[in-house]
């Protein structure tokens, strides 16, 4: 049995809303697991059930070989970092860190040492006497992490902790969280709706939609091999292009072009997915793109244009290529990297 084990976990709220459907998942010791999905998909609910802040309607949660369904949150030995940090506003940083330890009846010297160690690790030693209201966003974030670290819990739970920070700080804290987790080596679950955060932090990633884990795997697995239309659309930036198409006799026709000998026996209506970065300009073109708009990011250009019916088709090309608005581009798919999904079920068929 792995370190954290969720078995057929279901959450139904008293008003009948089903937030999580029979979800099973295991997290290994020391692993950094990320739950990613759009807001309202049930990822936070799942995390809160692990923390003990939500009742489990059905199913079992095991932590370190012990069933914790009915265990009180304080007894579960989990630490959580909240979206708005939930620092104790009337206590200084030292007491914010020490409060959980005091409640455990740990003696004063040990507490002092643990708090000082955690503060040193997070570089907040200078602020120990300050109140949270006197700290900047990044410092508050560190204090919230310190409060989690100092207890030396079995598992860290992060509930979108970076979403209140500005873009630059978010990237910096993202890096720090990853480094810290590697240094401390504590099993962690991180909830986010930001797919870049998810990709960069995760050892493994669970893409959640409508209370169901759509796909579970390493970030690269999920990027390279999305199993459903939802995952394909959610992971990757800019988003994957989707074209309506039809398969007959192993030939896919969409938007005025055909792909022959596809690796699928599926017949019927499909969605063809192509990532903007898997396109390149070539002579023997497959797709003819009429350019409407070019976003120059420096390293890359994002070219938006239209096909026969499809609008806002995106093509990502190196920043040194000059592309004018109104140009006609002939594009090919590199290495046959395209994805075909059943239009009715959203499942991958190639």
């Amino acid at each position, binding site marked *: 049995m792995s370190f954290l084990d969720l078995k057929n976990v279901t959450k139904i709220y008293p008003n009948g809303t089903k937030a999580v459907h029979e979800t099973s998942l295991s997290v290994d010791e020391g692993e950094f697991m990320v739950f990613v999905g759009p807001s309202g998909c049930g990822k936070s609910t799942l995390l809160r059930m692990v923390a003990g802040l939500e009742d489990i309607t059905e199913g079992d949660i095991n932590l370190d070989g012990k069933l914790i369904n009915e265990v009180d*949150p304080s007894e579960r030995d989990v630490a*959580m970092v*909240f979206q708005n940090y*939930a620092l104790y506003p009337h206590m200084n940083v030292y007491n914010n860190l020490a409060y959980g330890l005091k409640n455990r009846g740990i003696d004063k010297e040990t507490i002092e040492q643990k708090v000082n160690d955690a503060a040193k690790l997070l570089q907040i030693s200078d602020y120990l006497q300050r109140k949270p209201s006197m700290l900047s966003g990044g410092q508050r974030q560190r204090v919230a992490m310190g409060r989690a670290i100092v207890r030396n819990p079995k598992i860290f739970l992060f509930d979108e902790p970076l979403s209140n920070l500005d873009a630059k700080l978010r990237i910096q804290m993202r890096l720090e969280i990853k480094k810290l987790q590697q240094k401390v080596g504590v099993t962690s679950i991180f909830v986010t709706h930001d797919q870049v955060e998810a990709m960069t932090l995760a050892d493994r990633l669970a893409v959640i939609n409508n209370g169901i884990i759509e796909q579970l795997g390493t970030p690269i697995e999920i990027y390279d091999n999305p199993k459903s239309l939802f995952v394909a659309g959610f992971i990757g930036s800019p988003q994957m292009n989707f074209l309506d198409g039809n398969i007959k006799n192993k030939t896919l026709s969409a938007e005025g072009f055909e792909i022959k000998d596809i690796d699928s026996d599926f017949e019927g209506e499909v969605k063809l997915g192509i990532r903007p970065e898997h396109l390149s300009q070539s002579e023997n073109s497959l797709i003819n793109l009429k350019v409407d708009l070019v976003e120059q990011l420096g390293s890359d250009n994002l070219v938006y244009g239209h096909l026969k019916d499809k609008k806002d088709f995106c093509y990502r090309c190196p920043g040194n290529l000059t592309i004018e608005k109104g140009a006609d581009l002939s594009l090919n798919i590199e290495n046959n990297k395209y994805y075909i999904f059943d239009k009715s079920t959203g499942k991958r068929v190639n």
Partner: protein
Amino acid sequence: MKIKPLQIIAHIILILGVLLMVVPIWISFASSSHDSVTILTEGMKFHIGDQLARNYNEVLNEKGGWSEEVTAAKMFINSFIMALGIATLKVVISAMSAYALVYYRFKLAVPIFWLIFITLLVPLEVRIFPSYKIVSDLGLTNSYTGLILPLVASATATFFFRQFYKTIPDELLESAKLDGANAWSFFIDFLVPLSKTMIAAMFIFMFVYGYSQYLWPLIMTTAEEYWTVVMGMKIIYTESYEGVALPRTAERFAYIILSMIPPVLVVVFLQKWFIKGLIQTEK
């Protein structure tokens, strides 16, 4: 800096307001330092007279009442105990009941809250006979418990605490739970320190409320040793002159001035918190 006409007008209004508040108190104080004959023949005074020490000493230490045993000093102590008891218990009980109403999500929380709230429509004066009956059946007449207990439930304070607790983010409770806080320690370690400005403000209101109670102590106490200041104002100096004696106007003024001191002290000591509690919530 140029002073605008509007500012002058504003200041005039403010100064008038201040005078309106201060002048009567000053007149009372000045008049309390003359002897009663002067006041009766010449009217109220604006300047300090020579009887200050004598009048105040007399008021504080003269034994009055029917049995000629109770002094004003004793009444001050009684009033202080009563007001302190009422204010303390009101704050404690209201804070705790608001805590229960906000954080224990039982089905009847909302109906119970409204039930508490509508008791605002039934002040003590309206329910004074049933209250008296209960207190006297319990044998609590002529005791501090009897003076304090029927007045300790407060819908107003419960309401204010409830509204305040509702603004405290849920994450704080959840985070505290994960840190091992139980129901009691969340109240003591979080809600009490977070609402200390609120507590101070409520304490002042309730102290003044308790201090100025008149009807309840009047009905409740037959023994003079439990008389309160507000009762004494009426009783002592109407009882103690008989026919031929002159009304003791100067002593009355001294008594009034003295009776104002305890609430003023409470306000002065707690005003820093009081103002904070009214204008901001520390979160």
